């Protein structure tokens, strides 16, 4: 019964979204405040319906209601509670429901922040957002209904894909979706501005927190997915340039550019048209990512043709929104007024360069991901585009960008002085260069690029913090006073510095992977395997039987320079219901580095294959991403983002109304 109610609520949400789409847009056009006021009310109602629907599905999972097809296919009564919950979005139908839930949630938040957003803008924005909601609700209801019943009900479920039975994966999709869908708000605001034909710094100030929040969540989501791949897939890589990863990297790159261009728009009223276009492109790339992942087109062009219904539907949505918004852009953008002049050497100029590099990097990932598909469709020729291509093309784009980053961050607005700026960074250049040389001397004969990468990372960290230091402290200032001044700096300045320092930390972590050591061997119990400064001894192999899987666990003792450092356990699991094997890496964290081991098949002579890595500083890759997201969060708490727009007329005392 509850299941049917959930299904019905979804249909009701569709009807309400239609109202949320049509009435406010009409109201904004006719300048009718009553019609425009429908926007927030209907947005809240849509959210309530979708939330109810989502809870109904969650309830079916919690109760292992095996009369629901979706639950049968993705759950099992013996599954731990957390995976019963995460199983709701660990499948196609449920993940799409989560997608619209987050979409509606964002709409609801826009609806309740009615005091800080001008009414027309809010009405137009929620109207555009409702259009996206309608498309995805239609998609779910017609092709991916999670509430389909099976008669007769099954006795037991088929279990959730074992690779997804992991705490990391339980929160990875929601983080990623908040990022993806968050950009829908920037998109809706951009379309609203185009519809209204008006755009100014107030618009930028309203949109910025949404973009920044979405960006921070997307950063976390990608980092989370990367760490999961690192410890779960068992061969120690953390980024594979896989199309599914690229699908999330593209909106991230475009979103990063957007976060920076909105700053220019907000502070200097410039780059308006570009910012609008970027907002449209960022969400388009989010949609593209959803299409790539959900349509199965990536696995093979043919699997897309086998089950064309869903793929074609999302492709339709993609074409409708990308095409529609770009048409709107082409029609209305020339009417937007340009403003804000600046010299090429200025903070604005630097941010234009930042956008140029990020847009090119994004285009590179885009072409690399889609080119093989396009080529196969057009000429039936099959090529592969993988990691070597991306490393070859992407790195030359990112390194110059990173080199320019501290300079750009230090440049003055409007008209900067390049030499003067460079002078403020002398100490940073010096220390980083020195560190590179020292590192190079110490690791002489090792990989050449690693010390350079570490130097670059250090330069980014110091260069970012330098901004705070030079703004708060000058020669002769007592430290206490400098600290007070530093604390008084705007939160956005701190956020910028911290996020940029996070980039530096990630760069250091990536550079240090070049010093990683790998050893492969087959061990019998009691035998040792040496990899660099570390060594493991196979203690025992224990077979275990758990509720929904069997595993063989190898216990290894880790030694470093003769001392015992600890034990790690690495497993090979077999999930019984699906007959699917997985590996669980054993990881011992030492400082910021990790000793990482995974086991393979038993050899004929009774030994077991062991793969051992030492990965120095590897944790910095994800710590850096976390710091980036924290920087975004701190920037969000900036005072100026919390200031509301002028209070509506009713709050003004009657005598203040000018006579007409």
């Amino acid at each position, binding site marked *: 019964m509850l299941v049917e109610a959930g299904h019905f609520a979804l249909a009701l949400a569709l009807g309400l979204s239609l109202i949320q789409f049509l009435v406010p847009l009409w109201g904004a056009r006719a300048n009718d405040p009553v019609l425009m006021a429908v926007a927030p009310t209907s947005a809240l109602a849509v959210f309530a319906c979708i939330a109810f629907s989502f809870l109904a599905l969650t309830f079916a999972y919690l109760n292992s209601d095996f009369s629901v097809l979706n639950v049968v296919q993705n759950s099992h009564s013996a599954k731990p509670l957390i995976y019963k919950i995460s199983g709701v979005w660990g499948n196609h139908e449920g993940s799409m429901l989560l997608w619209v839930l987050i979409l509606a949630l964002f709409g609801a938040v826009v609806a309740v922040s009615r005091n800080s957003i001008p009414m027309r803008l809010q009405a137009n924005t929620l109207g555009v957002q409702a259009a996206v909601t309608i498309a995805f609700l239609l998609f779910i209801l017609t092709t991916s209904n999670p509430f389909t019943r099976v008669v007769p009900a099954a006795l037991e479920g088929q279990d959730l894909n074992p690779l997804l039975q992991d705490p990391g994966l339980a929160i990875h999709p929601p983080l990623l979706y908040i990022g993806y869908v968050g950009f829908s708000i920037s998109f809706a605001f951009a379309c609203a501005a185009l519809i209204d034909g008006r755009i100014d710094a107030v618009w930028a100030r309203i949109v910025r927190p949404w973009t920044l929040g979405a960006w921070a969540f997307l950063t976390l989501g990608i980092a989370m997915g990367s760490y999961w791949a690192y410890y779960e*897939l068992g061969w120690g890589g953390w980024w594979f340039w896989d199309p*599914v990863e690229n699908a999330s990297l593209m909106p991230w790159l475009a979103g990063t550019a957007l976060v920076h261009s909105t700053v220019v728009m907000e502070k200097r009223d410039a780059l308006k048209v570009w910012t609008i276009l970027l907002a449209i492109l960022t969400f388009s790339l989010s949609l593209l990512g959803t299409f790539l992942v959900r349509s199965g087109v*990536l696995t093979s062009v043919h699997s897309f043709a086998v089950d064309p219904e869903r793929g074609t539907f999302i492709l339709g949505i993609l074409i409708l929104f990308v095409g529609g918004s770009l048409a709107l852009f082409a029609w209305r953008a020339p009417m937007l007024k340009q403003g804000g002049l600046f010299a090429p050497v200025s903070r604005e100029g630097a941010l234009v360069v930042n956008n140029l590099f990020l847009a090119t990097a994004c285009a590179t990932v885009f072409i690399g991901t889609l080119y093989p598909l396009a080529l196969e469709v057009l000429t039936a020729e099959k*090529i592969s585009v*993988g990691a070597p291509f991306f490393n070859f093309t992407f790195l030359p784009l990112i390194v110059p960008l990173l080199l320019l980053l501290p300079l750009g961050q230090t440049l003055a607005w409007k008209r900067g002085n390049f030499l003067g700026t460079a002078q403020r960074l002398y100490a940073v250049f010096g220390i980083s260069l020195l560190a590179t040389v020292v590192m190079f001397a110490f690791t002489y004969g090792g990989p050449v690029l690693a010390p350079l990468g570490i130097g670059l990372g250090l330069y980014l960290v110091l260069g970012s913090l330098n901004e705070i230091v030079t703004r708060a402290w000058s020669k002769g200032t007592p430290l206490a006073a400098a600290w007070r001044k530093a604390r008084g700096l705007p939160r956005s300045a701190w956020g910028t510095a911290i996020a940029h320092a996070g980039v530096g930390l990630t760069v250091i972590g990536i550079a240090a992977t070049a010093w990683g050591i790998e050893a492969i061997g087959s061990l019998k119990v009691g035998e040792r395997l040496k990899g660099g400064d570390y060594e493991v001894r196979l203690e025992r192999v224990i077979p275990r039987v758990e509720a929904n899987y069997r595993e063989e666990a190898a216990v290894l003792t880790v030694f470093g320079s003769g001392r015992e450092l600890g034990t790690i356990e690495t497993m090979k699991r077999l999930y019984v219901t699906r007959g*699917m094997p997985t590996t669980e890496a054993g990881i011992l964290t030492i400082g910021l580095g990790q000793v990482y081991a995974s086991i393979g098949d038993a050899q004929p002579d009774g030994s077991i294959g062991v793969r051992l890595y030492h990965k120095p500083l590897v944790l910095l890759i994800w710590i850096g991403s976390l710091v980036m997201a924290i920087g975004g969060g701190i920037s969000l708490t900036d005072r100026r983002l919390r200031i509301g727009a002028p209070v509506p007329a009713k709050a003004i005392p009657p005598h203040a109304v000018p006579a007409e």
Partner: protein
Amino acid sequence: MRFVLAIVAALLFSASAFAVQPGEVLKDPGLEKRAREISAGLRCLVCQNQSIDDSDAQLAKDLRLLVRERLVAGDTNDQVENFLVQRYGEFVLLKPTFGMHTLLLWLTPALVMVLGGVGAYAAMRTRPQPKAATLDDEERKALENLLKRDQSA
């Protein structure tokens, strides 16, 4: 979002093990290093976007052994790659060759960079330069008066 890949990967690996097996490693560390470098650039044909160095599939294992066989026989890295391309087509290379069919792929980064740069430059140049605010006669007179008053005071 990686989980879709993971699902596909997991379905393809009948027997899960891990990429390079202990038995495959060559005695000569120099040759082994070259073998690893070549492997990282070759696609496991039955997997989704994995190199044979990372893959657990049987085919990847066969290809790894083949690469090592050729290296031991004295082939250069290029010869090994050419041999595999002849057998399996260009699909086996993770970094496609530069040619007519991949022109757009290889040139896009440079193209976007150059066009974007030119576009940004042009947009900045054609922007109406701010006219230096000049005073008209009346204002100039007013200013002179003010200055005069200042001097006399």
